Structure formats: structure tokens, C-alpha cells
């Protein structure tokens, strides 16, 4: 019977929720504070984006300096890529096969300082692990075009790679004249398959790629390239090929497409962003071809020198955090100050429910403020930065949505955590002090904010274990295992993956709320 007369469990929760929401929305100062927080996010995003200007120089002479950014190619799926290499190719119409033996792969590393333009005169021998040389099929020599390649590398043995981000491993071991590698690519309509062999007789399939919309006639040939080291030094790789055949698959190695080889040094102009060592080139000696190249074919990382859509968002979000810390504290401490808490508990005797409902209200409100503000601020900042000539790393709409959700969640979890702290301490000053020290101060060591290297490890540590980990949700810089690059805080990379970072912040909020629940249950109001 009682279930008919008394509101259900869900009904009581909804009633408590409505009560808390009414208490919240009728305090004018809090609503003004929320609007102020959102406004600050948008305003400071605009100001920071507006303060970013890019320019570069093509020679040491200052008169060669121009505003704007260097060219960063965009790959087939819209990502930023590096596409700088030496290609020695012929045109192949229809299906076909290219086979070659690679006998040597050697390299040189710039010996000059990393911050100076590398010079071919100042080098020392050395091969980077992702130096690449092998066979490549591409419809176009334009940067960022689709491709598939099978290659020998400096330290990763034989690989089959296509469209910048896809990678499969082939035969292990490094190349030498006593242990050469045979490489083969076959084209069958849109499918490119890569093979390798240690003797040219027993072939082993490394991988295959489906390149949609591949035209009938494509460039097929040999390539070499060598990326900058993780210290930022430019490098160069030289590879020797022999036993080179190109022909229709039925003829096999018997016939070769007639006509001369065409060498192209792709993506190494003064306006291309990738730092190269010397000019690429090739020379033919009898049946063999020696190809020299510098650059990379792969994903672009922070060294491409761009900004991300979330870069100017940080400062405004920190202001919003402080405002929500103040409001989240007052949401509970003002009830203690005025004695309203006794009325609240009289109306909803279940302490846990009061705390939960308050957390839902402040968390929901904070989420909306953070998410709406960043949803407005991100496109605005992107527009302003682009107008100022900055390069912005392309980010998919799902990734941008993650940043928007992350901004909301960051503010929401902080507000909920501070609600817990306020419940425990019952005093505004103490709760805000703890809130700011624990949830805001660690972020002050953030990306690009860290000074000497001695504090870099401290910053990394803070962004792993303190609530600042939540800011990982803003990370948009691309990283790839196909590129040797120091993915450090100093270079703008958060040490944790986005959702893992948010989980750390969530753990702090959950701990604060749990402690508050325990304390509430034990003491009188």
C-alpha cells in the first residue's frame, strides 16, 4: 500500500534534484559567475589565438623572411604528413610488377647544431632507424598523395607501408652487401602487394594495400629518404639497387618498361616544412642505380611546427576552473553558513542522496559551461590562428568533439570534487584554498610553460598523477610510432592518453565525494 501513497525512490530523487536545481539557479551571483566563466574561456581563447603569429625564413638573410607557415602536406585521410623524398620512377600503365635488389643502405647525419640550417659539408656517417629506401607506387608526385611502398629501413628491417600511417613488418635483419634484400611490388587493379626475399627466389608476402581510385597509369620506381633524428638533426640516406625490372605481371622479370628513369626530389623546396640534409639525387652505373634522399614519408608530428585547435583554450579553462571552484564550494558551504543545511536534511534525510543530487546539479551545470564555452571558443580560435598565418594540425570532428567533451568534463569533475571538499570542511576559505592548490596549481607547469629541463620531469610527473592529468583531454598533437620524436611535455605532448588523464581526475573527484559521504553520515549537520 505504501508504495501507492509515497513517491517512489526515483520520484524522491527527482524531487531532491528539482529542489537543489532551484536553490542553484535562484542565486543570481552564481548564474553571473557561470556566464563570466564561459565568457572568459571564449575571450582568452580569442586573445591567445590573436597573439600567435607565424613566419619563416628561406635563407639566413632576413630579407627572405615571410609571414605565414611552411607547407605541411595533407594525407589521403586528412591527416598532416611528411612527404619529402627522392623518387626515381617510370610510368607504368595497367597491372604490373617492379622488382629490385637493395644491396646497401648507408647514411649521414648533420654534425652542425640542431638549430642551424643543416649543411651537406658538415656531416658524420650514421643511419637513422627510420631511414627508408625501396620500391614505391604512387599516382602522383604531388605531396600528400596516396602511395604504397616496400622498403628496407635503418633499424626496423623490411617494412611495407602505405598512405603514411599503415605499416607491416617483413623480413628481420639489416641490409648489407653480404645480406641484401630483394623487394617486389605488384599492382593488380587497385591493390598493391609487397613482397620480400633474401635470395630473389623464395618470396614472402609482407602486406598489401587497397588504394582506392588508383588511375591506370602510375609512377613506379625506387625511392630513398631519411628523417631527422629525435635530437632534430637532419639526415640523408643512400641506397644501391640492382636487378631492377618493371613489367606486366605475366612477363615477370623478362621485360622492362622502356624509356629513361625520371628523378624527382619531392617536398624539399624552401617552402616545405621538412628539414632535409643536402639535395636528393640518383646516378646510374650499368645495371644498378644509387639513390640518395633526405626527408620522411610518414605522419607529421609536432616538429611540423603547427598549433592545434585546443592550444589557445588552456588559460580560459583555468579561469573557468577557479570560478567553478568558488561556486562549487559555495553550493554547500553557504548552506552550512546560513543553517539551510538543516532544512535540506529535514526535506531529504538521506545524506547520500543530498550529496549525489548536489553533485549532479553542480557537475551538470559545470559540464555545460565548459563544453559550450569550448565549442564556441575552438572554432573561433582556429579561425583567428589561421587568419594570422598559423598552421593548425587537422583534427577530425570526432577528435574535436572529444576536446569539447573533455573541457566540460574537466570543469565538471573539478566542481564535483570541490563540492566534496566543501562538504568535508564546511568552510569556504579552506575548501577554495585546497581546491585551487590541488586542482589549479599543478596545471601552472603545463605544456609550453615549463622552463629549464630540470623541471620538465617534474611537470611530466604532475600531469600524470595530479588532477592536472585531466588536461590530457586537450591533447591534439599527432604522435606516431613510425616517427622517432621526443613526445615530451616540452614539445607539447601530454604524458597520458586523453581518457586515461580524465580517469585520473575522475578518481580525485570520486575520492573527494566518497570522503564527503562518509563524513556526512557520521556527524550532525
Amino acid at each position, binding site marked *: 500500500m505504501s508504495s501507492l501513497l509515497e513517491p517512489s525512490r526515483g520520484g524522491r530523487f527527482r524531487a531532491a534534484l528539482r529542489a537543489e536545481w532551484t536553490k542553484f539557479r535562484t542565486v543570481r551571483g552564481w548564474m553571473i559567475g557561470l556566464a563570466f566563466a564561459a565568457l572568459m574561456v571564449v575571450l582568452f581563447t580569442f586573445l591567445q589565438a590573436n597573439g600567435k603569429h607565424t613566419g619563416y625564413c628561406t635563407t639566413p638573410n632576413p630579407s627572405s623572411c615571410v609571414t605565414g607557415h611552411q607547407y605541411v602536406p595533407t594525407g589521403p585521410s586528412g591527416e598532416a604528413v611528411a612527404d619529402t623524398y627522392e623518387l626515381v620512377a617510370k610510368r607504368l600503365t595497367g597491372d604490373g610488377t617492379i622488382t629490385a635488389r637493395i644491396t646497401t643502405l648507408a647514411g649521414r647525419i648533420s654534425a652542425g647544431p640542431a638549430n642551424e640550417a643543416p649543411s651537406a659539408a658538415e656531416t658524420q656517417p650514421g643511419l637513422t632507424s627510420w631511414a627508408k629506401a625501396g620500391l614505391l607506387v604512387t599516382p602522383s608526385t604531388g605531396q600528400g598523395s596516396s602511395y604504397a611502398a616496400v622498403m628496407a629501413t635503418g633499424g626496423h628491417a623490411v617494412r611495407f607501408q602505405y598512405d603514411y600511417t599503415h605499416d607491416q613488418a617483413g623480413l628481420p635483419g639489416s641490409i648489407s652487401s653480404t645480406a641484401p634484400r630483394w623487394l617486389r611490388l605488384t599492382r593488380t587493379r587497385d591493390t598493391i602487394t609487397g613482397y620480400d626475399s633474401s635470395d630473389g627466389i623464395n618470396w614472402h608476402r609482407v602486406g598489401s594495400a587497397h588504394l582506392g581510385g588508383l588511375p591506370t597509369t602510375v609512377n613506379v620506381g625506387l625511392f630513398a629518404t631519411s628523417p631527422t633524428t629525435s635530437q632534430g638533426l637532419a639526415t640523408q640516406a643512400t641506397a644501391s639497387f640492382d636487378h631492377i625490372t618493371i613489367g606486366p605481371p605475366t612477363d615477370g622479370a623478362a621485360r622492362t618498361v622502356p624509356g629513361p628513369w625520371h628523378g624527382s626530389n619531392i617536398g624539399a623546396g624552401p617552402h616545405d616544412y621538412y628539414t632535409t640534409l643536402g639535395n636528393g639525387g640518383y646516378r646510374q652505373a650499368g645495371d644498378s642505380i644509387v639513390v640518395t634522399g633526405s626527408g620522411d614519408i610518414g605522419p607529421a608530428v609536432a616538429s611540423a611546427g603547427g598549433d592545434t585547435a585546443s592550444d589557445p583554450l588552456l588559460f580560459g579553462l583555468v579561469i573557468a576552473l*577557479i570560478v567553478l571552484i568558488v561556486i562549487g564550494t559555495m553550493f554547500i558551504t553557504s548552506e552550512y553558513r546560513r543553517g539551510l543545511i538543516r532544512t535540506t536534511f529535514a526535506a531529504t534525510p538521506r545524506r547520500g542522496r543530498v550529496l549525489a543530487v548536489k553533485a549532479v546539479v553542480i557537475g551538470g551545470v559545470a559540464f555545460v559551461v565548459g563544453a559550450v564555452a569550448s565549442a564556441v571558443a575552438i572554432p573561433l580560435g582556429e579561425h583567428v590562428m589561421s587568419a594570422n598565418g598559423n598552421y593548425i594540425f587537422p583534427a577530425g570532428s570526432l577528435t574535436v568533439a572529444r576536446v569539447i567533451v573533455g573541457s566540460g568534463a574537466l570543469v565538471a569533475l573539478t566542481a564535483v570534487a570541490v563540492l566534496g571538499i566543501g562538504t568535508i570542511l564546511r568552510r*569556504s576559505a579552506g575548501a577554495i*584554498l585546497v581546491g585551487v592548490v590541488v586542482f589549479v596549481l599543478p596545471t601552472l607547469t603545463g605544456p609550453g610553460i615549463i622552463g629549464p629541463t630540470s623541471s620538465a620531469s617534474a611537470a611530466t610527473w604532475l600531469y600524470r598523477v595530479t588532477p592536472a592529468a585531466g588536461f590530457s583531454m586537450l591533447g591534439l598533437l599527432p604522435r606516431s610510432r613510425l616517427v622517432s620524436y621526443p613526445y615530451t611535455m616540452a614539445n607539447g605532448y601530454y604524458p597520458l592518453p586523453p581518457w586515461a588523464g580524465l580517469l585520473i581526475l575522475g578518481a580525485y573527484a570520486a575520492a573527494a565525494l566518497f570522503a564527503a559521504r562518509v563524513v556526512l553520515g557520521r556527524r550532525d549537520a
Partner: protein
Amino acid sequence: MTDALRAEWTKLRTISGTWWLMVGAVAVTVAASAGIAASTHVSPGGPGGANGAGQDPTKLSLIGLDLGQAVIAVLAVLAVTDEYGTGMIRVTLAATPRRAVMLGAKAVNIAGLALVTALPAVTGSLIAGRLLLPDAGPNPAHGYGLISIAHGPTLRAAFGSVLYLGLIALLSLGIGTVLRDTAVSTGTVLALLYLPPLLAQLVSGPWRRHIQQIAPMSAGLAIQATRNIRSLPISPWAGLEILAAWAAGMLLVGLAVLKARDA
């Protein structure tokens, strides 16, 4: 004036929170300084040493003040906002109707308490730095002297840091008087202290320097520098004067609104 001073002193003295906050400020400052000093790893031939900037052992060992000042700020804010929260302010103003005398008495008491707190906090931090930093790298073998207040710039840094905390307290008292609410005042003071240094790192060019020259924390803490004074955005004493101007300005605004409105 003497009666007002004694009244404010009695109020502050008899709140247990005052003493807890003072002890907390000292503990937080010394603990943070010691923690940073113990976890610092300085490579003398590293980037810091190579470009001539090097490390500043005195400044490094006083880094706990960055944290401890927040506690002092809360202490000062509470001295006035707590009275508004409880309605005590009406009794206070009935007893001391002259707003300037009341605020002056509060300022003297709060500044005194802040200075008394700062003395052990600064001393403890310097001792921690002297004991712990040599193991971290900045030691005599690497060309860094042991921290000693016999060294002129270190004495200036120590004395100036004590004054710095006193001025932070006055600035916080002024903001508390203007805003009256504990939560809003605390949030505002901490935002005013901690946000400009963050903003300065995010902007480039002359703006960074200007922010470091006028922000209360960045300018005021210039007093802690003992090396490469010329490369600072603002000279030590000028920086402390900027902070003093902030504190005086906020107290004056506080006095003006105190006179203009009802309690």
C-alpha cells in the same frame, strides 16, 4: 586607534583558525621548499648553465612561498570576510565607527601576523635549501656557494620575502574588504596571484615582460633573485614596490567602498 588595534588583536587572537593557518603557512612553505630542493636535479653543464642563466639556489630554496602565500592570503581574507559572514562587522563598526581606523587596525594586525609567520617560513626554507640543495647539484664544487645570509643578495631575498608575505596579506585584506564574501574573495585573490604567471608563459614578445612587470606575484617575487638581476623583467626592489602599490591600491579601494556603503 590603540583601542581599535587591541580590539582587532583580541578578535584575531581568540579565533583558533588564525593560529592553525599560521602554523599551516609555515609548514606548507617549508615542506614545499624542502620537497622541491630535494627533488631538484641540476646538471651544471646543462642548458641552464650553458646560456649563462644557471640556477639561483636562494630563489629555488624559497619556492615554497609560492604555495605558502595562499594560506597567508586566506588568513587575511578571513579577517574581514568572516565578520561579514557572521554579522560581526556591524558590532565592529558600532564600536569603531571610523572606517579608516577600523581598516587600519585590521591592516596593522594582519600585516604583523603575516610577518611573524613569514619569519620562520623563510628561515626554514633557506635552511632546508642550504642542507638539501648541495646534494642536488648547485653545490660549491659546481661553483654555487652555500646559501648564507651573510651574502648580500641572499639577505635581500630573505628580508624581501618576509615583506612580500606581509604585502600579500594587505592585498588580500583589501580585496576581502571590497568583496565581503569569503568564497568570492578567496577565489579572486588566488586567481590574481596565480593566473598572471600562467598567462605570461602563454603569450610572447613584450606582453610577457609587461605582465611579469605588473602582476603582483611575478613582480613581488623578483625580490628573491640573487643572480642575473639584469635579465629580470623588473629589478628586485622595484618589483616589491609594484606589489606594495597593489596592496595600497586595494586597501584604498576597500576603504572607499567601506565608507560609501552600509555594513
